[in-house]
């Protein structure tokens, strides 16, 4: 009867073990740990690259070279490893050899912007400023967000394409610390974070009308009626948190928001922020916000924001706590004005978010993105059916049959049916059209992926609904009217 006894085994956290018996994670330095990891896992390319980059940063050039060589042994065409070797050669002073290497890799991959950037630096080092400027422009043309402020200055280029692109007419508050910003964004750009200009708008997103209206209120109307909003002391921008089951369009609506206001869209994944160096993650986060500030109006979109804005009580060690504190400080605008920046966060696990992120001025609008309703499912079915050989597609019947399905589930249904139709087509040697029946058959073997999410969400909505955070979930489940 006593459920507690067996459950106790689950109460023992794995980190309790580390706390008491000596952790495998007591790293003295990042590079040492990476070195150990590489020794244990010599075939792991991402790990080798990480180690090589770390060695370059520490100017451990022979180790960096060895790691890049190892990557090339495993994958002889690996472009980043080739670029890395050229960088090692340049840092060693073998500029001519570095130029030859860089030219060779660009011959094979002329669209590789970082290659042109390096070549620009190399030819400048060899004294050819004009050629350097040409290569630099080539790099910027290929990737407008790629920049190197120091190189730019050394080449005597007045302004980069990137800074030109940031002079958006809608920008209400150009940052005063532009020079400082450039230095900071220089590194952010090196991390290949792109400022997109999405073409998708609200018109391309089926359903979700209340969500669109919330976002309009938060960013679009203020931009259109700036004077009116400032008369009421309202600032442009702010934070909106979208939560709901996976595959239900949180990323799409975020992208469409940027498309709607013709703003830059910066999509951030946790891997772009987290850094093993102490303080590295905080720096990355700050650079990212600075990038958005300089591109305002911009939508800064944090996918799986729960990973970065996690509840601090879940982290005993201070490293992650300081990242979360930095995130809060950036959101508050303590380290730079967030005027004109809409911070969108998407999460499948809002219950893992630190409650501090829900306070006013941060993610103060919280929107539940439910699975698509019947009419939205119809639209999705129509969209998914485009460019496929179809015969009498009954979107109504499919929408009726796919209750609780997410957009991703509907796509999966199409994929299964298409595979079957393809196999028939190969047997018969002709194109066999996809029918409603095929899709309904595909449905039979599927369970809506949203169910698992709602099982968890129901528990949080029933037992941890402080401040009515999950009222929308309760309403959706029919528990609360």
């Amino acid at each position, binding site marked *: *009867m*006593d*459920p*507690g*006894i*067996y*459950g*106790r*085994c*689950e*109460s*023992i*956290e*794995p*980190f*309790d*073990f*580390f706390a*008491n*018996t000596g952790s*495998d*994670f007591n790293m003295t330095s990042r590079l040492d*740990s*990476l070195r150990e*990891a590489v020794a*244990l*896992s010599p*075939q*792991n390319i*991402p*790990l080798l690259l990480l180690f090589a980059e770390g060695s370059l940063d520490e100017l451990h050039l022979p180790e960096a070279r060895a790691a890049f060589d190892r990557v090339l042994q495993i994958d002889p065409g690996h472009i980043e490893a080739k670029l890395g070797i050229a960088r090692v050669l340049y840092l060693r002073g073998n500029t001519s050899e570095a130029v030859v290497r860089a030219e060779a890799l660009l011959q094979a991959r002329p669209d590789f912007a970082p290659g042109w950037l390096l070549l620009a630096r190399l030819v400048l080092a060899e004294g050819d400023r004009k050629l350097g400027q040409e290569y630099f422009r080539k790099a910027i043309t290929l990737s407008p967000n790629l920049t190197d402020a120091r190189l730019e200055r050394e080449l005597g280029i007045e302004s980069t394409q990137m800074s030109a692109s940031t002079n958006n007419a809608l920008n209400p508050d150009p940052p005063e610390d532009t020079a400082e910003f450039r230095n900071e964004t220089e590194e952010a750009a090196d991390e290949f974070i792109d400022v997109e200009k999405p073409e998708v708008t609200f018109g391309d997103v089926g359903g979700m009308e209340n969500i669109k209206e919330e976002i309009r209120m938060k960013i679009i109307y203020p931009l259109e009626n700036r004077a009116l909003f400032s008369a009421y002391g309202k600032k442009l921008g702010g934070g909106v948190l979208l939560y709901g089951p996976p595959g239900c369009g949180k990323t799409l609506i975020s992208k469409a928001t940027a498309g709607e206001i013709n703003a830059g869209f910066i999509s951030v994944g*946790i*891997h772009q922020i*987290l850094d*093993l160096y102490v303080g590295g993650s905080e720096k990355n986060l700050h650079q990212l916000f600075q990038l958005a500030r300089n591109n305002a109006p911009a939508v800064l979109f944090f996918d799986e924001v729960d*990973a970065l804005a*996690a*509840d601090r*009580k*879940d*982290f*005993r060690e201070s490293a*992650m706590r300081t990242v979360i504190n930095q995130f809060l400080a950036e959101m508050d605008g303590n380290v730079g004005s967030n005027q004109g920046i809409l911070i969108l966060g998407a999460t499948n*696990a809002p*219950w*893992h978010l630190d409650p501090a992120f829900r306070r006013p001025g941060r993610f103060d609008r919280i929107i539940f993105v439910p699975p698509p309703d019947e009419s939205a499912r119809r639209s999705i079915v129509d969209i998914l059916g485009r460019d496929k050989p179809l015969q009498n597609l009954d979107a109504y019947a499919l929408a009726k049959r796919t209750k609780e399905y997410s957009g991703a589930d509907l796509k999966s249904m199409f994929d299964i049916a298409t595979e079957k139709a393809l196999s028939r087509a190969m047997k018969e040697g002709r194109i066999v059209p996809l029918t409603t029946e095929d899709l309904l058959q595909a449905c039979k073997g599927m369970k809506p992926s949203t169910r698992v999410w709602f099982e*968890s969400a*129901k*528990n*949080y909505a*029933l*037992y*941890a609904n*402080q401040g009515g955070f999950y009222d929308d979930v309760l309403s959706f489940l029919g*528990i609360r009217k």
Partner: protein
Amino acid sequence: MSESFTRALMFVKQGRYREAEPFLRQAIQSDPEDPQVFFFLATCLMHEPKNRAEALSMINEALRLRPNRAFYHAQRANILVLLARAKEALREVYEARRLAPDSADSFVAESVVKLVLGKPREAERAARQALALDPENEAAGDSLADALRLQSKFGESEAQIQNLLASNPENPWAHSSGGMLALQKGDARSAERFFLAALRIDAEHQEARDGLLHAFRARSPFYRAYLKYSFMMERLDRVGRGLFVIGLLVLLQIAKALFVGPLASLGYLLVALYLLFVLWVWVARGVGNFFLLRDPLARHALRSGEIREAIVVGGGVLMGLSAFGTGILLKQSAIIFFGLTLIGAALPMSLVFTNRSKAGRFLFGAAGAAVYLGGFASLALLLFPQEGVGDWAANLFGITMLLALLTTWLGNIPSLRRG
């Protein structure tokens, strides 16, 4: 450390085991010789009942790669406990202790294993040893609170829970222990508050959720009586429990021999009460859940399997008892047959909807169907007697009821009954 592993560790630290799992699998692909990855994957898998067999194979792999890691052995012990293999778990605990005699973890694991084996006194000793080595160890503190409660040392258990909550008010296990203590003391309202507090901190806390359901059901005096009985039985060891039931049976036989003639009806009443007492254990949860269906909050705490169980088992027993009583009053055998069929079928059906054993679900489902079929066939024969079939109705009904009782014996086989 691969990016997947770093990501997985973040999830593990947050207790998001389901989400960590795919990243750990990726990490294994990039480095199949890293024992830590296997250890963490085992840790994630053990939280899902259906994945525990795989969790064991993962911890075995971790131990193959690093056989002398004491906490891998301790974790293996935990997994074995969850797989209801407590004796093997104990061996693993001793191995962990041999490898790291100064580690609190081995003692915590030992304490848990001893609790499962029904040895709360030894569990208390192990928990205290763990706390002597690491006074901040919450798992040891929780285990100590439970060990004290199971020895009916309510005051000490309560003080221990208060200490745990004073040092960390956000410890869901301590709240949950408080709930269990309140339940054992018969204070269902306090138990409800404790369990709700645990669920507010961790809404997916399985122990608290189960405890809350007990607390909700305990609003009914019948269920409270059942809980008292369960807690009393829990305090006895296996032999003690067997002796208790046999003792009751002997007393019943003596009573039957004494109550003859005009007192015979008293004897029958005692037999009925004995049967109700013995069989109530099987249907108490279903009946309790049936009452919860009317509660606006509590009914949402039930899972779909529990709702089906509430309707079939709880509804069946209550309707069956009403029909049985009406049949006795009206002296109508058909109504008595109908009532007993519903009650009899509820016994195997109580092991269908929430049973995690596939074989058990199939076996008891088939037995339940057979009881319904046999009972209603007997009823049909009784209502529409056929010539030349003799007393088939009564014979068939007798066999059917015997089958229903037989399933309670089968229900004691652990592999056929996993909650």
